[in-house]
């Protein structure tokens, strides 16, 4: 089955979707040893089917597997690569706010990719996608390094480059399987918007995406001071920057204008849905947001999407409603622009 992605303003997602109860149950029971590997896979596959179904029902053009298997975007990869230790005991955890702690991985040896970590879920999603393209999404080397302690490497840059080489293998496995929308998540980059950080992230992305010229290469950056990364990131070896706009009250549009983003030739993943608020946006809000960006960008270069992953909403109904509004509003804009009857 094939699916025709609209030529202008295609809709997409950043990646994660609220976890379905079956995914939560599968993760809990599997780690307690209460279910077999086969049963675990069956339950995760079902959760992915549900996540895909929601995206299709909402009308999203380019979808994801909903990251139903991933505990979080850092630990998931760290636990599956050699060189990391992720403590399971309470004394190994690190405070993130108040009395909430998280498992911060420690790099204790040379980083090595062992086997595909995300391929099976991408395949499950593709099986259910009714021809819609499924984004392949991994956490980027800069963020993996920034969100871990480093006990082994001489310096951080050495760690980032090694991570890039190993994560390249992950992306290559997805690319070889047919994934052509390849997204690398680098949220940590916006917290260190300095030249040396921007430079090392560029070098790392070159390595990660090497040899995948015919794929859509996307980097997702959110939270923090994304504006400060411009214009230095405009020469990154990617086809699309996937950015948040609602969370900064569309202030980032000033940067898009100031640095003439459109002339870079790159596409823009344009966040129009707030992932921190459970209030569902109105169609008018989304339409206005789209028209705002069209003042600076051609519609064929704009991908309409939520600011970030929807997992944080924690509520599948709200996530679905938000996606539905996003798609309906986008369709109306396409029609008003005369591209869709």
């Amino acid at each position, binding site marked *: 089955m094939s699916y025709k992605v609209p030529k202008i303003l295609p809709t997409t997602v950043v990646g994660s979707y609220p976890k379905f109860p079956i995914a939560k149950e599968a993760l809990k029971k599997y780690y307690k040893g209460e279910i077999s590997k086969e049963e675990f896979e069956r339950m995760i596959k079902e959760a992915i089917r549900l996540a895909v179904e929601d995206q299709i029902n909402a009308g999203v053009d380019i979808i994801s597997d909903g990251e139903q298997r991933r505990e979080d975007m850092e630990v998931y990869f760290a636990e599956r690569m050699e060189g990391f230790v992720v403590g399971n*005991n309470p*004394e190994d955890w690190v405070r993130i706010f108040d009395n909430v702690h998280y498992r911060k991985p420690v790099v204790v040896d040379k980083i090595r990719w062992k086997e595909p970590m995300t391929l099976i879920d991408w395949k499950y999603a593709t099986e259910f996608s009714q021809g819609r393209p499924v984004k392949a999404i991994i956490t980027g080397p800069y963020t993996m390094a920034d969100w871990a302690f480093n006990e082994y490497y001489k310096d951080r840059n050495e760690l980032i480059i090694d991570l890039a080489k190993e994560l390249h293998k992950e992306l290559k496995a997805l690319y070889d399987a047919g994934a052509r929308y390849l997204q690398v998540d680098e949220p940590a980059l916006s917290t*260190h918007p300095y030249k040396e950080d921007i430079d090392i992230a560029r070098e790392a992305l070159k390595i990660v995406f090497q040899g995948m010229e015919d794929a859509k290469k996307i980097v997702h950056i959110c939270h923090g001071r994304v504006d400060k990364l411009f214009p230095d990131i405009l020469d990154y070896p990617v086809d699309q920057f996937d950015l948040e706009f609602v969370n900064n009250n569309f202030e980032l549009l000033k940067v898009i204008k100031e640095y003439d983003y459109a002339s870079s030739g790159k596409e823009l993943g344009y966040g129009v849905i707030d992932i921190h608020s459970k209030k569902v946006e109105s169609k008018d809000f989304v339409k206005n947001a789209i028209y705002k960006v069209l003042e600076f960008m051609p519609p064929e270069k704009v991908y309409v999407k939520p600011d970030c992953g929807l997992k944080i909403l924690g509520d599948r109904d709200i996530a679905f409603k938000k996606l539905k509004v996003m798609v309906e509003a986008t369709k109306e804009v396409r029609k008003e622009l005369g591209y869709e009857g």
Partner: protein
Amino acid sequence: MIRILASHPGGYPRPPELRKAIDSYNAGKIIFVSLHRIWRNTMMKVIREQSEEGLDVLTTGHLLWDDIFRPFNKVWEGIEIPEVGNYYRFYELNFYYKRVKVKAPIVPKRPATVHEHEIASKVVPRLLKADLPGPLTFALHVEDDYYNDMDALMSDISKALAYEISYLAPLVDYIQIEEPALVDPEVKPEFKEMGIEYLNLMLRDVPIPTIVKTYFKPAEDVYELLLDLDADGLGFDLTVWNIDEFKAILIENGYPYDIIDLGATDALNVKLEPIEEMASKLYSIIDEIGVAEAHISANYRYDVLPYSYIRKKMRRLAEITFKLRELVEEG
């Protein structure tokens, strides 16, 4: 002879038993008296751990502080804590503080941190340091719905902090003020000047040594401004400041204080610093300046490390300090 002390900025990872107790208290499963008993025992434990690993200047660990601003929300009139949300990243850390709202004039009703220092002062086997946020850093991390004027806001914050210090000074050996905002390049210079002015008002009558600790950025651009501080010592983050450049600044501008706090070890990573190399670098610094005391410290608070690593990190800091003492004695 220079006195060289192993110190740390403050903060400490919450040991698991305290974390569990806090969760239980928040869930209504235990009463405050039980939480208090566990907290007290845990504080005794972390004081003992600091001492056992060889630190000379100890802190209470600030174990019940949710962030550096929140021991004060319950005891200062005029500020409110939002029930939900309002979490913001603290500088570039993967740690979030809750931004308090200023709704009326800030007036302290009672001291916030005296109780923990009273207990600690009775058991601490070495020197005890109290640590507070500075008025500039504090003012830049609140949501001000009342003053709408940085000068007035900082003035009242510094008065409230001075009140706190007046209770702490009899109990401790040092007062340390955390002022990362002074070296933040994004903070307006006029705010930094104001910050120094209010720090000086806060610290002028303090009868014990005071240290103003900076971190996360080198202080090279504001070093001359920092020299206007009427403190007994300044603290610098040497994990982000090239040591040769740091020395050059000290030589060029002088260092007119009795105490220097060198944030030499990295509290943001579990990796252990090489003893000889680090001691040698530190020796080259103190060899250039005529201070009475050098506090060898971590660059930042210890509360963003895992509890399982904290003893190793403190031991390494003490080993570096010990080696440095040897180098100084050898001349």
